Protein backbone atom coordinates (compact mmCIF):
# COMPACT_ATOMS: atom_id res chain seq x y z
CA UNK A 1 0.00 0.00 0.00
CA UNK A 2 1.27 3.45 -0.83
CA UNK A 3 2.04 5.98 1.88
CA UNK A 4 -0.87 8.08 3.16
CA UNK A 5 -1.21 11.53 1.65
CA UNK A 6 -0.63 13.17 5.00
CA UNK A 7 0.69 11.63 8.17
CA UNK A 8 1.16 13.86 11.23
CA UNK A 9 2.92 12.51 14.33
CA UNK A 10 3.40 14.44 17.57
CA UNK A 11 3.02 17.84 15.96
CA UNK A 12 3.27 20.84 18.29
CA UNK A 13 3.47 24.38 17.04
CA UNK A 14 2.85 27.95 18.09
CA UNK A 15 3.90 31.57 18.04
CA UNK A 16 6.60 32.91 20.37
CA UNK A 17 5.98 31.64 23.91
CA UNK A 18 2.48 30.47 22.99
CA UNK A 19 1.85 26.80 22.25
CA UNK A 20 -1.22 26.43 20.06
CA UNK A 21 -1.01 22.80 18.91
CA UNK A 22 -0.35 20.06 21.47
CA UNK A 23 1.06 16.78 20.11
CA UNK A 24 -1.34 16.12 17.27
CA UNK A 25 -1.51 12.77 15.49
CA UNK A 26 -3.65 12.09 12.47
CA UNK A 27 -3.57 10.57 9.00
CA UNK A 28 -5.32 11.46 5.75
CA UNK A 29 -5.59 8.74 3.08
CA UNK A 30 -5.65 9.16 -0.68
CA UNK A 31 -9.00 10.14 -2.16
CA UNK A 32 -10.40 11.46 1.14
CA UNK A 33 -12.20 14.72 1.77
CA UNK A 34 -11.90 15.58 5.46
CA UNK A 35 -13.65 18.35 7.38
CA UNK A 36 -11.74 19.93 10.25
CA UNK A 37 -14.35 21.44 12.54
CA UNK A 38 -13.69 23.72 15.47
CA UNK A 39 -14.37 27.15 16.90
CA UNK A 40 -12.38 30.27 16.31
CA UNK A 41 -9.01 30.26 18.05
CA UNK A 42 -8.78 26.52 18.61
CA UNK A 43 -5.93 25.95 16.18
CA UNK A 44 -7.42 24.97 12.81
CA UNK A 45 -5.50 27.62 10.91
CA UNK A 46 -2.39 27.03 13.00
CA UNK A 47 -2.52 23.34 12.07
CA UNK A 48 -2.60 24.26 8.38
CA UNK A 49 0.13 26.84 8.87
CA UNK A 50 2.29 24.31 10.70
CA UNK A 51 1.92 21.85 7.81
CA UNK A 52 3.01 24.68 5.46
CA UNK A 53 5.89 25.70 7.74
CA UNK A 54 4.45 29.15 8.41
CA UNK A 55 4.26 29.09 12.22
CA UNK A 56 6.96 30.68 14.36
CA UNK A 57 8.13 27.30 15.62
CA UNK A 58 7.11 23.68 15.42
CA UNK A 59 8.26 20.16 16.23
CA UNK A 60 7.07 16.71 15.27
CA UNK A 61 6.77 14.79 12.07
CA UNK A 62 4.71 15.85 9.04
CA UNK A 63 4.89 13.44 6.11
CA UNK A 64 3.46 14.50 2.78
CA UNK A 65 3.08 11.47 0.50
CA UNK A 66 5.72 9.67 2.54
CA UNK A 67 8.17 12.57 2.41
CA UNK A 68 9.14 14.31 5.66
CA UNK A 69 8.42 18.04 5.49
CA UNK A 70 8.09 18.79 9.20
CA UNK A 71 10.71 18.34 11.88
CA UNK A 72 12.00 20.69 14.50
CA UNK A 73 12.19 24.35 13.61
CA UNK A 74 12.28 27.60 15.54
CA UNK A 75 12.19 30.99 13.87
CA UNK A 76 12.27 31.83 10.17
CA UNK A 77 8.61 31.14 9.39
CA UNK A 78 8.00 30.54 5.70
CA UNK A 79 11.60 29.70 4.93
CA UNK A 80 10.78 26.23 3.61
CA UNK A 81 7.20 26.86 2.56
CA UNK A 82 7.94 26.98 -1.14
CA UNK A 83 9.67 23.58 -0.94
CA UNK A 84 6.70 22.05 0.89
CA UNK A 85 4.40 23.56 -1.73
CA UNK A 86 6.53 22.10 -4.49
CA UNK A 87 6.40 18.71 -2.73
CA UNK A 88 2.65 18.72 -3.44
CA UNK A 89 0.82 21.02 -1.04
CA UNK A 90 -1.86 23.50 -2.04
CA UNK A 91 -2.75 25.70 0.92
CA UNK A 92 -5.55 28.22 0.44
CA UNK A 93 -5.12 30.31 3.58
CA UNK A 94 -7.48 32.44 5.59
CA UNK A 95 -7.28 36.00 4.31
CA UNK A 96 -6.61 34.58 0.85
CA UNK A 97 -2.97 35.85 0.58
CA UNK A 98 -3.72 37.65 -2.66
CA UNK A 99 -1.46 40.04 -4.57
CA UNK A 100 -3.59 43.23 -4.73
CA UNK A 101 -1.99 44.75 -7.84
CA UNK A 102 -2.01 41.62 -10.02
CA UNK A 103 -4.98 40.74 -12.17
CA UNK A 104 -7.07 37.59 -11.80
CA UNK A 105 -5.39 36.05 -14.85
CA UNK A 106 -1.95 36.80 -13.40
CA UNK A 107 -2.94 35.18 -10.11
CA UNK A 108 -3.91 32.04 -11.91
CA UNK A 109 -0.59 32.13 -13.80
CA UNK A 110 1.23 32.49 -10.46
CA UNK A 111 -0.50 29.34 -9.25
CA UNK A 112 1.05 27.39 -12.13
CA UNK A 113 4.48 27.23 -10.56
CA UNK A 114 5.88 24.06 -12.14
CA UNK A 115 7.03 24.10 -15.76
CA UNK A 116 4.46 21.44 -16.67
CA UNK A 117 1.64 23.45 -15.10
CA UNK A 118 2.96 26.64 -16.71
CA UNK A 119 2.74 25.09 -20.17
CA UNK A 120 -0.81 23.89 -19.57
CA UNK A 121 -1.98 26.99 -17.75
CA UNK A 122 -4.42 28.19 -20.42
CA UNK A 123 -6.24 24.87 -20.50
CA UNK A 124 -6.29 24.57 -16.70
CA UNK A 125 -7.54 28.15 -16.41
CA UNK A 126 -10.40 27.29 -18.75
CA UNK A 127 -11.35 24.27 -16.61
CA UNK A 128 -11.30 26.34 -13.43
CA UNK A 129 -13.33 29.15 -14.98
CA UNK A 130 -16.07 26.60 -15.60
CA UNK A 131 -16.10 25.94 -11.84
CA UNK A 132 -15.62 29.56 -10.73
CA UNK A 133 -17.83 31.08 -13.41
CA UNK A 134 -17.97 34.65 -11.96
CA UNK A 135 -14.21 35.07 -12.47
CA UNK A 136 -14.51 34.79 -16.23
CA UNK A 137 -15.42 38.42 -16.81
CA UNK A 138 -12.97 39.66 -14.15
CA UNK A 139 -9.80 38.15 -15.66
CA UNK A 140 -8.24 41.55 -16.38
CA UNK A 141 -9.23 43.25 -13.09
CA UNK A 142 -6.65 43.79 -10.33
CA UNK A 143 -7.61 41.51 -7.45
CA UNK A 144 -7.34 44.43 -4.99
CA UNK A 145 -10.56 45.80 -6.46
CA UNK A 146 -12.62 42.59 -6.10
CA UNK A 147 -15.20 41.70 -3.45
CA UNK A 148 -14.53 39.23 -0.66
CA UNK A 149 -16.29 36.34 -2.39
CA UNK A 150 -14.48 36.97 -5.65
CA UNK A 151 -11.14 37.11 -3.83
CA UNK A 152 -11.89 33.80 -2.14
CA UNK A 153 -12.57 32.28 -5.55
CA UNK A 154 -9.31 33.72 -6.92
CA UNK A 155 -7.39 32.31 -3.96
CA UNK A 156 -8.99 28.87 -4.36
CA UNK A 157 -8.54 28.83 -8.13
CA UNK A 158 -4.90 29.88 -7.75
CA UNK A 159 -4.32 26.97 -5.38
CA UNK A 160 -5.89 24.58 -7.86
CA UNK A 161 -3.80 25.62 -10.88
CA UNK A 162 -1.08 23.04 -10.18
CA UNK A 163 -2.16 19.48 -9.33
CA UNK A 164 -1.28 18.81 -5.69
CA UNK A 165 -1.30 15.83 -3.36
CA UNK A 166 -2.89 17.65 -0.47
CA UNK A 167 -5.31 20.57 -0.62
CA UNK A 168 -5.72 22.53 2.63
CA UNK A 169 -8.68 24.91 2.44
CA UNK A 170 -8.96 27.30 5.38
CA UNK A 171 -12.52 28.44 6.14
CA UNK A 172 -13.88 28.82 2.62
CA UNK A 173 -17.10 30.35 3.97
CA UNK A 174 -15.51 32.95 6.27
CA UNK A 175 -16.95 36.42 5.80
CA UNK A 176 -19.11 35.44 2.85
CA UNK A 177 -22.89 35.66 2.44
CA UNK A 178 -24.59 32.24 2.90
CA UNK A 179 -25.48 31.92 -0.78
CA UNK A 180 -21.96 32.70 -1.93
CA UNK A 181 -20.33 30.43 0.63
CA UNK A 182 -22.56 27.57 -0.53
CA UNK A 183 -21.45 28.26 -4.11
CA UNK A 184 -17.80 28.22 -3.04
CA UNK A 185 -18.22 24.91 -1.19
CA UNK A 186 -20.07 23.47 -4.18
CA UNK A 187 -17.14 24.45 -6.37
CA UNK A 188 -14.71 22.76 -3.96
CA UNK A 189 -16.77 19.57 -4.10
CA UNK A 190 -16.53 19.57 -7.90
CA UNK A 191 -12.75 19.46 -7.79
CA UNK A 192 -11.42 15.99 -8.52
CA UNK A 193 -8.75 15.24 -5.89
CA UNK A 194 -7.67 12.06 -7.71
CA UNK A 195 -5.04 10.26 -5.67
CA UNK A 196 -4.68 13.32 -3.45
CA UNK A 197 -6.82 14.49 -0.56
CA UNK A 198 -8.54 17.64 0.64
CA UNK A 199 -8.86 18.96 4.19
CA UNK A 200 -11.37 21.77 4.72
CA UNK A 201 -11.33 23.75 7.96
CA UNK A 202 -14.77 25.12 8.78
CA UNK A 203 -16.83 26.47 11.67
CA UNK A 204 -20.09 25.91 9.89
CA UNK A 205 -20.63 22.16 10.18
CA UNK A 206 -23.94 22.28 8.28
CA UNK A 207 -22.20 23.52 5.16
CA UNK A 208 -20.10 20.35 4.89
CA UNK A 209 -22.19 17.65 6.57
CA UNK A 210 -22.84 14.69 4.32
CA UNK A 211 -20.38 15.95 1.73
CA UNK A 212 -17.09 14.82 3.25
CA UNK A 213 -15.72 11.36 4.01
CA UNK A 214 -15.11 12.12 7.68
CA UNK A 215 -14.93 14.90 10.22
CA UNK A 216 -12.23 15.75 12.70
CA UNK A 217 -13.08 17.96 15.67
CA UNK A 218 -10.58 20.43 17.01
CA UNK A 219 -10.66 21.87 20.51
CA UNK A 220 -7.99 23.86 22.34
CA UNK A 221 -5.21 22.74 20.05
CA UNK A 222 -6.06 19.05 20.23
CA UNK A 223 -8.09 16.75 18.03
CA UNK A 224 -11.23 15.74 19.96
CA UNK A 225 -13.70 13.36 18.45
CA UNK A 226 -14.13 12.29 14.86
CA UNK A 227 -16.92 10.94 12.72
Amino acid sequence: MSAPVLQVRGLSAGYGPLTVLHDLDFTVQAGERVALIGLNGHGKSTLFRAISGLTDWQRGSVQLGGREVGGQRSGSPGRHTHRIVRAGLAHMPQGDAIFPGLTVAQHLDCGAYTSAAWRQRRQRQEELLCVFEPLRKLLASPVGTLSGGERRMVSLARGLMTPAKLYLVDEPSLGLAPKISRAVVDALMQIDVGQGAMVIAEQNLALLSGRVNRTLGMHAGQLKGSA
Partner: protein
Amino acid sequence: MDVDIGFIAITALTLGCIYALLALGVSIVFASLGMINMAHGLSFAVAGYGAWATAQWLSTAPWAVLGGGMLAGGLCGLLICSVAFIPLHDKPNFVVRSLVATLAISLLGVQGLLTAFGPNAKSLPPLFGTAPWTWGGWQIPADKGGAIVCALLLMGLTLLWMTRSRMGLQVRAMMQNPEGAALVGIGVRSTALTVMALTGALAGLAAVLLSQTYFVSPFSGTTPLVKGLIVALAGGLGSVPGAVVAAALVGLIEALTGAFLGGQYVLITQFLFIIAVLLWRPRGLGGLLDHSRE
Protein backbone atom coordinates in the same frame (compact mmCIF):
# COMPACT_ATOMS: atom_id res chain seq x y z
CA MET B 1 22.30 84.05 -24.59
CA ASP B 2 22.84 81.29 -27.10
CA VAL B 3 21.12 78.10 -26.04
CA ASP B 4 21.22 74.94 -28.09
CA ILE B 5 17.87 73.26 -27.50
CA GLY B 6 18.94 70.09 -29.30
CA PHE B 7 22.01 69.71 -27.12
CA ILE B 8 19.96 70.18 -23.94
CA ALA B 9 17.39 67.67 -25.15
CA ILE B 10 20.00 65.04 -25.99
CA THR B 11 21.88 65.55 -22.73
CA ALA B 12 18.63 65.32 -20.80
CA LEU B 13 17.67 62.15 -22.62
CA THR B 14 21.06 60.48 -22.08
CA LEU B 15 21.16 61.33 -18.39
CA GLY B 16 17.52 60.37 -17.97
CA CYS B 17 18.13 56.97 -19.53
CA ILE B 18 21.15 56.23 -17.39
CA TYR B 19 19.46 57.41 -14.17
CA ALA B 20 16.43 55.32 -15.06
CA LEU B 21 18.65 52.23 -15.33
CA LEU B 22 20.06 52.92 -11.86
CA ALA B 23 16.73 53.86 -10.32
CA LEU B 24 15.06 50.76 -11.77
CA GLY B 25 17.67 48.68 -9.98
CA VAL B 26 17.14 50.44 -6.63
CA SER B 27 13.38 50.37 -7.06
CA ILE B 28 13.02 46.73 -8.08
CA VAL B 29 15.26 45.61 -5.22
CA PHE B 30 13.32 47.66 -2.71
CA ALA B 31 9.98 46.47 -3.98
CA SER B 32 10.75 42.78 -4.18
CA LEU B 33 13.26 42.33 -1.37
CA GLY B 34 12.30 45.22 0.95
CA MET B 35 15.92 46.34 1.07
CA ILE B 36 17.48 49.68 0.18
CA ASN B 37 20.60 48.63 -1.60
CA MET B 38 23.27 51.16 -0.62
CA ALA B 39 25.82 49.01 -2.42
CA HIS B 40 24.18 49.61 -5.81
CA GLY B 41 26.88 52.21 -6.45
CA LEU B 42 29.52 49.57 -5.75
CA SER B 43 28.00 47.32 -8.42
CA PHE B 44 28.26 50.35 -10.69
CA ALA B 45 31.96 50.91 -9.91
CA VAL B 46 32.83 47.19 -10.06
CA ALA B 47 31.10 46.95 -13.44
CA GLY B 48 33.19 49.86 -14.69
CA TYR B 49 36.34 47.99 -13.70
CA GLY B 50 34.98 44.78 -15.22
CA ALA B 51 34.51 46.58 -18.52
CA TRP B 52 37.92 48.18 -18.24
CA ALA B 53 39.59 44.84 -17.50
CA THR B 54 37.80 43.24 -20.45
CA ALA B 55 38.99 46.02 -22.75
CA GLN B 56 42.50 45.78 -21.32
CA TRP B 57 43.06 42.03 -21.45
CA LEU B 58 40.41 40.32 -23.52
CA SER B 59 38.88 42.32 -26.30
CA THR B 60 37.93 45.88 -27.11
CA ALA B 61 34.90 44.83 -29.15
CA PRO B 62 31.89 46.86 -27.96
CA TRP B 63 29.78 43.80 -27.11
CA ALA B 64 32.64 42.29 -25.11
CA VAL B 65 33.18 45.48 -23.09
CA LEU B 66 29.44 45.86 -22.44
CA GLY B 67 29.15 42.17 -21.58
CA GLY B 68 32.17 42.28 -19.28
CA GLY B 69 30.72 45.25 -17.43
CA MET B 70 27.29 43.69 -17.05
CA LEU B 71 28.78 40.38 -15.93
CA ALA B 72 30.91 42.10 -13.29
CA GLY B 73 27.87 44.10 -12.10
CA GLY B 74 25.72 40.98 -11.94
CA LEU B 75 28.35 39.08 -9.96
CA CYS B 76 28.66 42.00 -7.58
CA GLY B 77 24.86 41.90 -7.15
CA LEU B 78 25.04 38.19 -6.31
CA LEU B 79 27.73 38.88 -3.73
CA ILE B 80 25.68 41.64 -2.09
CA CYS B 81 22.67 39.35 -2.01
CA SER B 82 24.50 36.46 -0.41
CA VAL B 83 26.09 38.67 2.25
CA ALA B 84 23.35 41.21 3.02
CA PHE B 85 20.06 39.55 2.11
CA ILE B 86 20.20 35.78 2.53
CA PRO B 87 21.50 35.63 6.10
CA LEU B 88 19.39 38.58 7.29
CA HIS B 89 16.06 38.52 5.48
CA ASP B 90 14.06 36.61 8.08
CA LYS B 91 15.68 38.24 11.11
CA PRO B 92 13.97 41.02 13.06
CA ASN B 93 14.57 44.60 11.95
CA PHE B 94 15.69 43.49 8.52
CA VAL B 95 15.20 46.92 6.89
CA VAL B 96 17.77 48.70 9.06
CA ARG B 97 20.13 45.76 9.23
CA SER B 98 20.25 45.36 5.48
CA LEU B 99 20.74 49.11 5.06
CA VAL B 100 23.75 48.96 7.39
CA ALA B 101 25.05 45.77 5.77
CA THR B 102 24.85 47.10 2.22
CA LEU B 103 26.45 50.39 3.30
CA ALA B 104 29.29 48.42 4.88
CA ILE B 105 29.74 46.30 1.76
CA SER B 106 29.81 49.47 -0.29
CA LEU B 107 32.53 51.09 1.86
CA LEU B 108 34.62 47.91 1.97
CA GLY B 109 34.24 47.36 -1.75
CA VAL B 110 35.23 50.90 -2.68
CA GLN B 111 38.33 50.71 -0.49
CA GLY B 112 39.10 47.32 -2.03
CA LEU B 113 38.92 48.79 -5.53
CA LEU B 114 41.15 51.64 -4.38
CA THR B 115 43.73 49.14 -3.08
CA ALA B 116 43.57 46.94 -6.15
CA PHE B 117 43.47 49.50 -8.94
CA GLY B 118 44.76 52.72 -7.37
CA PRO B 119 43.09 56.12 -7.37
CA ASN B 120 43.72 56.96 -11.02
CA ALA B 121 40.68 57.05 -13.25
CA LYS B 122 40.62 54.64 -16.19
CA SER B 123 38.97 55.34 -19.50
CA LEU B 124 37.12 52.88 -21.67
CA PRO B 125 37.55 52.60 -25.44
CA PRO B 126 34.80 54.35 -27.41
CA LEU B 127 32.07 51.75 -27.98
CA PHE B 128 29.95 53.43 -30.59
CA GLY B 129 32.62 54.94 -32.83
CA THR B 130 33.65 58.57 -32.78
CA ALA B 131 31.78 59.99 -35.75
CA PRO B 132 28.53 61.72 -34.70
CA TRP B 133 25.30 60.17 -35.92
CA THR B 134 23.29 62.38 -38.20
CA TRP B 135 19.59 61.84 -38.38
CA GLY B 136 17.49 64.29 -40.34
CA GLY B 137 18.94 67.70 -39.55
CA TRP B 138 20.10 66.51 -36.11
CA GLN B 139 23.56 65.56 -35.04
CA ILE B 140 23.92 63.23 -32.09
CA PRO B 141 27.32 62.46 -30.55
CA ALA B 142 27.92 58.72 -30.96
CA ASP B 143 28.44 57.99 -27.27
CA LYS B 144 25.17 59.66 -26.30
CA GLY B 145 23.21 58.10 -29.14
CA GLY B 146 24.54 54.65 -28.28
CA ALA B 147 23.80 55.18 -24.57
CA ILE B 148 20.22 56.18 -25.31
CA VAL B 149 19.61 53.23 -27.63
CA CYS B 150 21.20 50.64 -25.31
CA ALA B 151 19.49 51.98 -22.19
CA LEU B 152 16.06 52.12 -23.80
CA LEU B 153 16.52 48.64 -25.21
CA LEU B 154 17.54 47.13 -21.87
CA MET B 155 14.81 49.01 -19.98
CA GLY B 156 12.26 47.77 -22.48
CA LEU B 157 13.52 44.21 -22.07
CA THR B 158 13.42 44.52 -18.27
CA LEU B 159 9.86 45.82 -18.32
CA LEU B 160 8.87 43.06 -20.72
CA TRP B 161 10.53 40.49 -18.47
CA MET B 162 8.74 41.92 -15.43
CA THR B 163 5.33 41.80 -17.10
CA ARG B 164 5.50 38.73 -19.34
CA SER B 165 7.75 36.00 -17.95
CA ARG B 166 7.00 33.59 -15.13
CA MET B 167 10.00 34.83 -13.17
CA GLY B 168 8.90 38.45 -13.54
CA LEU B 169 5.43 37.52 -12.35
CA GLN B 170 6.99 35.83 -9.33
CA VAL B 171 9.02 38.92 -8.51
CA ARG B 172 5.92 41.10 -8.64
CA ALA B 173 3.98 38.58 -6.54
CA MET B 174 6.75 38.62 -3.95
CA MET B 175 6.64 42.43 -3.87
CA GLN B 176 2.96 42.37 -2.99
CA ASN B 177 2.58 39.48 -0.57
CA PRO B 178 5.61 37.42 0.50
CA GLU B 179 3.50 34.82 2.31
CA GLY B 180 1.19 34.39 -0.67
CA ALA B 181 4.27 34.06 -2.85
CA ALA B 182 5.66 31.29 -0.65
CA LEU B 183 2.30 29.51 -0.91
CA VAL B 184 2.57 29.41 -4.70
CA GLY B 185 5.99 27.85 -4.55
CA ILE B 186 8.14 30.96 -4.94
CA GLY B 187 11.42 30.63 -3.06
CA VAL B 188 12.41 33.98 -1.58
CA ARG B 189 16.12 33.33 -1.64
CA SER B 190 16.44 32.04 -5.19
CA THR B 191 14.24 34.86 -6.46
CA ALA B 192 16.36 37.36 -4.52
CA LEU B 193 19.53 36.06 -6.16
CA THR B 194 17.98 36.46 -9.60
CA VAL B 195 16.75 39.97 -8.84
CA MET B 196 20.10 41.09 -7.46
CA ALA B 197 22.01 39.63 -10.41
CA LEU B 198 19.66 41.37 -12.82
CA THR B 199 19.77 44.76 -11.10
CA GLY B 200 23.55 44.44 -10.76
CA ALA B 201 23.76 43.88 -14.50
CA LEU B 202 21.55 46.95 -15.09
CA ALA B 203 23.91 49.01 -12.93
CA GLY B 204 26.75 47.54 -14.97
CA LEU B 205 25.16 48.66 -18.20
CA ALA B 206 24.65 52.15 -16.79
CA ALA B 207 28.30 52.20 -15.68
CA VAL B 208 29.67 51.27 -19.09
CA LEU B 209 27.37 53.75 -20.85
CA LEU B 210 28.21 56.58 -18.45
CA SER B 211 31.95 55.86 -18.66
CA GLN B 212 31.75 56.87 -22.31
CA THR B 213 31.61 60.44 -21.07
CA TYR B 214 33.03 60.17 -17.54
CA PHE B 215 35.68 57.77 -16.27
CA VAL B 216 35.97 54.57 -14.28
CA SER B 217 37.27 55.18 -10.75
CA PRO B 218 36.78 53.57 -7.32
CA PHE B 219 34.43 56.36 -6.29
CA SER B 220 32.57 56.55 -9.58
CA GLY B 221 29.56 54.79 -8.04
CA THR B 222 28.84 57.35 -5.32
CA THR B 223 27.19 60.12 -7.31
CA PRO B 224 25.20 57.72 -9.52
CA LEU B 225 23.98 55.92 -6.37
CA VAL B 226 22.80 59.21 -4.88
CA LYS B 227 21.06 60.09 -8.12
CA GLY B 228 19.58 56.62 -8.49
CA LEU B 229 18.20 56.91 -4.95
CA ILE B 230 16.84 60.41 -5.65
CA VAL B 231 15.10 59.15 -8.75
CA ALA B 232 13.77 56.01 -7.06
CA LEU B 233 12.45 58.06 -4.11
CA ALA B 234 10.88 60.71 -6.31
CA GLY B 235 9.31 57.99 -8.43
CA GLY B 236 7.88 56.27 -5.37
CA LEU B 237 10.12 53.43 -4.11
CA GLY B 238 9.02 50.23 -5.75
CA SER B 239 7.15 51.76 -8.66
CA VAL B 240 8.76 50.95 -11.98
CA PRO B 241 6.81 53.44 -14.14
CA GLY B 242 7.32 56.10 -11.45
CA ALA B 243 11.08 55.55 -11.59
CA VAL B 244 11.12 55.98 -15.37
CA VAL B 245 9.12 59.24 -15.23
CA ALA B 246 11.22 60.61 -12.37
CA ALA B 247 14.42 59.70 -14.21
CA ALA B 248 13.29 61.65 -17.25
CA LEU B 249 12.49 64.68 -15.06
CA VAL B 250 15.76 64.51 -13.11
CA GLY B 251 17.74 64.17 -16.36
CA LEU B 252 15.92 67.18 -17.78
CA ILE B 253 16.58 69.22 -14.66
CA GLU B 254 20.25 68.31 -14.74
CA ALA B 255 20.59 69.29 -18.40
CA LEU B 256 18.70 72.57 -17.92
CA THR B 257 20.66 73.45 -14.78
CA GLY B 258 23.92 72.67 -16.54
CA ALA B 259 23.00 74.87 -19.49
CA PHE B 260 21.51 77.87 -17.65
CA LEU B 261 23.06 77.97 -14.16
CA GLY B 262 26.26 75.94 -14.43
CA GLY B 263 27.25 72.42 -13.43
CA GLN B 264 27.93 73.27 -9.79
CA TYR B 265 24.21 73.82 -9.13
CA VAL B 266 23.11 70.41 -10.46
CA LEU B 267 22.89 68.57 -7.13
CA ILE B 268 21.17 71.56 -5.50
CA THR B 269 18.38 71.72 -8.07
CA GLN B 270 17.98 67.94 -8.00
CA PHE B 271 17.59 67.86 -4.23
CA LEU B 272 15.17 70.80 -4.39
CA PHE B 273 13.21 68.81 -6.95
CA ILE B 274 12.95 65.72 -4.78
CA ILE B 275 12.01 67.81 -1.73
CA ALA B 276 9.27 69.46 -3.76
CA VAL B 277 7.99 66.10 -5.03
CA LEU B 278 7.98 64.55 -1.56
CA LEU B 279 6.19 67.58 -0.08
CA TRP B 280 3.58 67.38 -2.80
CA ARG B 281 3.30 63.57 -2.90
CA PRO B 282 4.99 61.86 0.05
CA ARG B 283 4.77 58.50 -1.72
CA GLY B 284 6.46 59.79 -4.83
CA LEU B 285 5.13 60.04 -8.35
CA GLY B 286 4.41 56.32 -8.52
CA GLY B 287 1.24 56.75 -6.47
CA LEU B 288 -0.26 58.53 -9.48
CA LEU B 289 0.55 55.72 -11.86
CA ASP B 290 -0.10 52.47 -10.00
CA HIS B 291 -3.78 51.77 -10.22
CA SER B 292 -4.17 49.49 -7.26
CA ARG B 293 -2.54 49.68 -3.87
CA GLU B 294 -3.89 48.49 -0.60
